[in-house]
């Protein structure tokens, strides 16, 4: 319920900002309806929804749906879907690994090239998923090469070669 209050509050603020931002857009000369109308309508809707969520309307329906799903997966709850939160609070930060790796790709791919960048990404992701080095290192070497070849040969999309051009296997 606390989570609902917080997310609901966030939605109210988001809606208010959208409506305010929309209202400041310059109108089209000689016309009543311009680019400002739609964001204002959407923003007002968001504010209304946020208020209902903070008030806890509809929470019960959600619990029913969750109970349905829990009934189905109950036996295997010990194996899948159960957060491993009890292990250590630090481990929960691992959830940030995938988006951060993508940001790393954005920053590095033009300088380092596709193969080195994605090798590092695969290595990090595999280790973060409790993969052993014995699995992670070969994956990091083979997977980027394979993806690069598929994109280059089958789809004819050149990817940045950067530091590691491999002309002998056809990579520029």
């Amino acid at each position, binding site marked *: 319920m606390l*989570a*609902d209050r917080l997310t609901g509050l966030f*939605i109210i603020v*988001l809606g208010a900002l*959208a409506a305010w931002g929309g209202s400041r*857009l*310059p109108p*089209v000369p000689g*016309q*009543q*309806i*311009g*680019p400002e*109308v*739609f*964001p204002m309508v*959407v923003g007002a*809707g*968001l504010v209304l*929804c946020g208020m*209902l*969520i903070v008030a806890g*309307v*509809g929470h*019960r*329906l*959600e619990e029913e*749906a969750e109970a*349905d*799903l829990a*009934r*189905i*997966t109950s036996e*295997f709850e010990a*194996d*899948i*879907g159960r957060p*491993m*939160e009890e292990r250590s609070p630090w*481990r929960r930060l691992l*959830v940030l690994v*995938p*988006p951060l790796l*993508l940001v790393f790709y*954005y920053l590095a791919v033009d300088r380092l090239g*596709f193969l080195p960048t994605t090798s590092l*990404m*695969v290595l990090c*992701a595999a*280790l973060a*998923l409790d*993969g*052993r080095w014995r699995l992670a290192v070969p*994956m*990091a070497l083979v*997977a980027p090469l394979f*993806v690069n070849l598929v*994109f280059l040969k089958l*789809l004819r999309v050149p*990817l940045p070669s950067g530091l590691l051009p491999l002309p002998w296997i056809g990579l520029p």
Partner: protein
Amino acid sequence: MMATLLEAFRMVLQTDVLLAIVLASIYGLVVGSLPGLSATMATALLVPVTFYLSPIAAVATIISASAMAIFSGDIPGALLRIPGTPASAAYTDEAYAMTRKGQPEMALGICVWFSALGGIAGTISLMVLAPPLAEMALRFSTFEYFWLALLGLMCATLVARSSPIKAIASMLIGLLVSCIGIENPAGTPRFTFGLTDLLGGIEPIPALVGVFAVSEVMRAMLTAEPPKLPHRRFGSILAGQIALTKKYVAPQVRGNIVGIIIGVLPGAGADMAAWVSYSMAKRFSKEPEKFGTGHPEGLIEAGASNNASLASGWVPSLLFGIPGDTITAIAIGVLYMKGLNPGPTLFTERASSMYALYIIFIIANIIMIPLGILMIRIAATVLRAPRAAVMPVIIILCAVGAFATGNNLFAVLTVAAFGAIGYVMERYGYPVAAMVLGIVMGTMVEQNFVTSLIKSDGSLWPFFNRPVAAVLAGMTIAALMWPLAAWALSSARRSGRAARA
């Protein structure tokens, strides 16, 4: 007619199209069978690939991969009690109970056989429904399109298995995202915060990849690895399926019809079809007490239903550009990219392409049977692939795929951002599918809304005084009122019960 049909066959019987069907089918079977990787995600990751194919081959990959993935999600469901895709969740229990009774062949046989039959029924509905609706749609003006788009968005929130208020909020967030950029009635930069990268707006495809793929990898970071599948030898998989087809005619027909209806409804897809059909099977069954103990009836009805919905979901997508579910939301993006812009004229001007699409659907559902059986036999080996090997590859596919669709590195950041947004929303009970539909349809809703308002000079009356528009408006308002009514009804019942107690 005959000439168009021949032309359609000629279009499908090209090497690249046939190759695309087979490769996409294998891809769909493998990805769908891995727990945590949904059919939508499988389709989203394919989009960059379709970018470089001919239009028919591109559509063929989407159709085959999604149909196979919906079926193969049943495999880990039946063998491990872990649904491979959300569309299998409704009957995972039943299928697993059959496996425990020593009939895994029977359970998986039902899944593959009735999935294929359901898919073909859905295709027939697409063939029958689309042309007359196209005729009608030719006369639609912006008022009708506005209501239709809004109705689609409302349906998406109605069927979410969550609080309807949160679903509406997610949908509005999606609409807000679609406001970003200069693609609005005045061409003014809106919510771009001075960033040139945002001028073009948020592309739906990177957002989709982020929401459906990256957030899934994020979830995997915090959950334990699913158990391994024991190797086992299967007996004949199709044995007894003909007998079951004859015995359970009514559940099967009902499953197909419900699936078709749910598929046609904009916004509601395979997951919902399976849930509704499974509970209908139980309600109408002569032996409801057997449900949950490994009884084929519910499995037949729901398995047919989710595949039927997949094909009929293309009806609103092709006619109006309003996605029937998240998979067709992706398909619409591909159609635009390939110059097959959705709309009623598609059926008059590009009739051969439409016939080709039907043929691909039928081929995909027929080859589902042999390929599906093969997949069942090798499932134990495929499902042994450790997550630490699969998930990293998905991350690099997200990156390179997002980049390849627009040759724009900014798309990679969009993927990352929407991965995080999708993860947080899902965690707190906000259905991401509703947001995705908001993003995909936002521009269309706004355009029709604003154009209509300009035409009517700011008055709301013309929104209601055309007959079709009035009906659509009534349906939309009813959809909006439905959660309120349901809520009031159930709380009245509860307080009544409390008063009696």
